[in-house]
């Protein structure tokens, strides 16, 4: 379970997160939509303390941290509760696919090498990369690299996986393979927070959709509520802008 209370973050005196409150249940898949610059990435990064929030409380699993008093050790502990999948994959360039996935297990989680290898091969098989174990990231397509990124996160067996626009750096023809991997693991009951601009994906996998704008969560609800009956004008305008009017077919068609 995740619980955020009053998360605030400013950069150079401009407030990017204005007190975010958010509860996420175990196994829930939450997607975050919102215009560029609305603070989506910053929110994810505050969750794993890649950015230290200026104020508020972060709880993931059993670990609870008051951000104002957070020590280095606490930040490391809470960071180990989560894993992240980055927009630009951020794979370790000098390590093979297998080593990329094993690294966190061996170094941070102190898993025995043999066990780490076993577990890593298993997740890599799940993301369809069993035949690329000894390739370097530079030898892979973007879609393959991102699937390594997902495997690296998955291998850690974290309380939650944070996805920051996992497909937006990909060529259009590679988006599908990555989304389908994410869908598969979403169905396995792993808690996920996904920032995305892929509307049909969000509609399909989310238990809950958040719409962020200007550093606040403007609206939240089920995909059905958000996509078909948004309450807030800002949400409606955003959805219209990003998808064009024709994208959303009438409700009847979509239900079946």
């Amino acid at each position, binding site marked *: 379970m995740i619980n955020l209370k009053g998360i605030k973050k400013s950069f150079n005196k401009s407030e990017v997160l204005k007190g975010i409150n958010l509860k996420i249940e175990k196994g829930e898949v939450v997607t975050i939509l919102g215009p560029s610059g609305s603070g989506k990435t910053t929110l994810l990064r505050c969750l*794993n303390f890649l950015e230290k929030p200026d104020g508020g409380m972060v709880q993931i699993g059993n670990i609870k941290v008051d951000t104002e008093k957070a020590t280095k050790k606490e930040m490391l502990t809470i960071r180990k509760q989560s*894993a*992240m999948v980055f927009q630009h994959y*951020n794979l*370790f360039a000098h390590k093979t696919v297998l080593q990329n996935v094993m690294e*966190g297990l061996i*170094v*941070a989680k102190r898993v025995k090498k043999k066990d780490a290898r076993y577990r890593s091969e298993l997740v890599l098989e799940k993301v369809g990369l069993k035949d690329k174990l000894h390739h370097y990231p*530079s030898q892979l397509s973007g879609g393959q690299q991102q699937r390594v990124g997902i495997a690296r*996160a998955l291998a850690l067996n974290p309380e939650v996986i944070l996805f920051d626009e996992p497909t937006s750096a990909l060529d259009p023809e590679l988006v599908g393979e990555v989304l389908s991997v994410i869908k598969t693991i979403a169905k396995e009951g792993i808690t996920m927070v996904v920032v995305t601009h892929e509307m049909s994906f969000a509609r399909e996998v989310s238990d809950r959709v958040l719409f962020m704008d200007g550093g606040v969560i403007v609206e939240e609800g089920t995909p059905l509520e958000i996509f078909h009956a948004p309450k807030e004008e800002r949400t409606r305008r955003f959805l219209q802008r990003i998808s064009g009017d024709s994208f959303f077919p009438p409700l009847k068609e979509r239900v079946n």
Partner: protein
Amino acid sequence: MGKAFDPSLIIEFIPTLFHYLGVTLQILAASIFLGLILGVAAAIPRMFKIPILNQLVILYVSFIRGTPILIQLFLVFYGLPAVLQIIKIDVSKLEAIYFVIITYAISNGAGFSEIFRGAIRAVDKGQTEAAYSVGMTSTQNFFRIVMPQALRIAFPNVANSVIGSLKDTSLAFTIGVMDMMGRGDTLISATAHALEVYISLSIIYYSVVLLFEKTLGKLEKYFNRYQKADLSAAA
């Protein structure tokens, strides 16, 4: 002017001079090794912006860059004993070669510190964030993710410095070190065949540099094995 040019002397001089290559390589190895340590030590205050030390390193690097190595050599040779005298350490009996090694270590250290700093900054920050995101500490990240890649990035520049430094060692004879160049100097005095001596020396230096370039190039390729250019080779 010397005597009439005699090419056969070149063949004769080469083995004599080659005999002193060991001294040259000793100077090189010691000054590179110490220079690497000094380079790391000097890069740290720059990277972490440690006050005062940071400014001192900036001054150190710019002074080394802005003065001829020959003058640095004389400064160390005459200056170091004078400075050490103040704290009652007598180095007047110290062999000249040590002053050469110290000078070149200081000079290499300045260059290396800049190379290291640039290389560490050139490693993709995203990978550091990824390392943190899987739960690594900043120390683990530095030694396992950043440093191996920084070494690869730094390598070609370090290799260039090594070759440059090899040639610079030829100045050691000016303070009386008997390396290849020093031996050449005495050969010239003894035979008055300066041109033949310099041709012999250039042949030896050039051969050694070529050998170094070849070896270092191979090492560089090894370091780059995970880079894009190698894609077809490794796939």
